[in-house]
């Protein structure tokens, strides 16, 4: 579904993405993990066309995304940090988003209902707390029932209950032939949904493997233990 082919990106002298090649298919939930500054957010942003790579290409369903905007219809994006125009209300934001994509009739209002967004509809976006903003942007990401979900640190600002709701929703989506891409460094949060793990470090993919395979290779069951094991093994090989 999404194929990344020898991707390079540098900001000035700083190499952020260094020869990244990855291939994601539907029915996968990929955990993009890595330390701060490893290039997770940049990789996500290149997939969304927000950052333009120097070399390499990304194809979506076989079509290169360079200079395209149409493919983003199929992607729901929940950014790491959200900030909305101060004087508008939550319901105005949702009706604007719908009016932008008028000819798309597919809707997924599960999260919208589960987070009770209707109830905060008349609130100005400025007065929302960080967690409420995260709820709004999660509901927005799912709103048009996209085939691909890209979530950048989704659990950072959410309370435990909202977190569970989001995880359940992700699990349901996975059963419906979706592709889910999550970046996070809170590893334990991702245990139940992840099917594949991609570990980024200094702009390179250290490994990209199915979770089951990793579990048997390392004889561990928790994600953070697995990562620690694999890194130890790799270091001893070097």
């Amino acid at each position, binding site marked *: 579904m999404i194929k990344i082919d020898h991707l390079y990106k540098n*900001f000035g002298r700083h190499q952020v993405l260094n020869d990244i090649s990855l291939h994601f298919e539907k029915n996968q939930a990929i955990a993009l993990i890595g330390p701060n500054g490893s290039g997770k957010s940049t990789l996500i*942003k290149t997939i*969304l*066309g*927000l*950052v*333009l790579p120097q070399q390499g290409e990304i194809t979506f369903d076989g079509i290169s995304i360079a200079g395209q*905007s*149409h*493919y*983003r*219809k199929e*992607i729901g*994006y929940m*950014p790491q*940090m*959200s*900030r*909305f*125009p*101060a*004087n*508008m209300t939550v319901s*105005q934001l949702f009706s*604007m*988003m719908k*009016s*932008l*994509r008028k000819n798309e009739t597919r809707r997924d209002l599960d999260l919208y209902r589960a987070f009770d967004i209707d109830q905060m509809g008349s609130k100005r976006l400025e007065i929302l707390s960080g967690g409420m903003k995260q709820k709004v*942007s999660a509901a*927005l990401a799912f709103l048009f029932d996209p085939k691909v979900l890209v979530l950048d640190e989704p659990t950072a600002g959410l309370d435990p209950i909202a977190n569970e709701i989001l995880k359940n929703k992700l699990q349901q989506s996975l059963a419906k032939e979706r592709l889910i891409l999550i970046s996070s460094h809170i590893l334990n949060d991702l245990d139940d949904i992840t099917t594949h793990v991609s570990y980024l470090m200094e702009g390179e993919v250290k490994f990209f493997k199915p979770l089951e395979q990793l579990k048997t290779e390392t004889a561990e069951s928790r994600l953070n233990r697995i990562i620690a094991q694999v890194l130890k093994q790799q270091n001893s090989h070097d």
Partner: protein
Amino acid sequence: MINITKFIINDLIKNWILLLYTALLLLATLGFFLLEGQGDKAILGVLNLTLLLVPMITVIFSTIYYYNMYEFLILLMAQPLRRRSILGSLFLGLVVSFGLAILAGLGLPLWLLHPGGVSLVLIVVALLLTFIFIGLALFVAVWLKDKARGMGMALFLWVYFVLIFDGLVLLMMYNFSDYPIGKIVLFITFLNPVDLGRIMVLMQTEAAALMGYSGAVFRQFFSEWRGMLASLLIMLAWSLCPAWLSLRMFRVKDL
């Protein structure tokens, strides 16, 4: 594009700074007419205030607004929309909201108290300056990712167009006063929309008679409809160029 523009206008017209700005313009315009009575003197007061205040508020507010909207722009960019239409909507939203502020705060009282050519030219100049400095603000904001640097640059642009440029021109005129430089000064004026706006209004008033030799060259140029048209076109170019450049820059920018 229209939808985003409407959304942004809706957000801006509820912004208290913009409301305060409109009220300030309204009060100041009324104040000048109450203090100076009818006529050119009040117009000159309003003109000086406009040339100082309008570029400053517009350029600073628009720069801050872009940086505040940055995360929202990214969210919009993740939708199936073209980049051009997103920044274009932001520009249009600012242009319409600030345009309304000028019309309500400056246009309305001027037209009621002193209807005529001078007021019309002054309103048009204020509107054009608004567009120009919104364009410059977007240019700076798209160019510089860092908010503090962007603000510094925006402020510098204001100081440059309002103060430094005039100083440089005066210096040049002083040094070359033995030569017939009226025409050259005229062309140099085209490089600064604030000065051009000032002259466009001044030439409609009696004050033009006091401007000496280069004043005569100016007067000849600006009193003809061709001169007026030329300066209008230059002001229009000034409002479109920075906006167009920022759109181009935005298209290939990493966000």
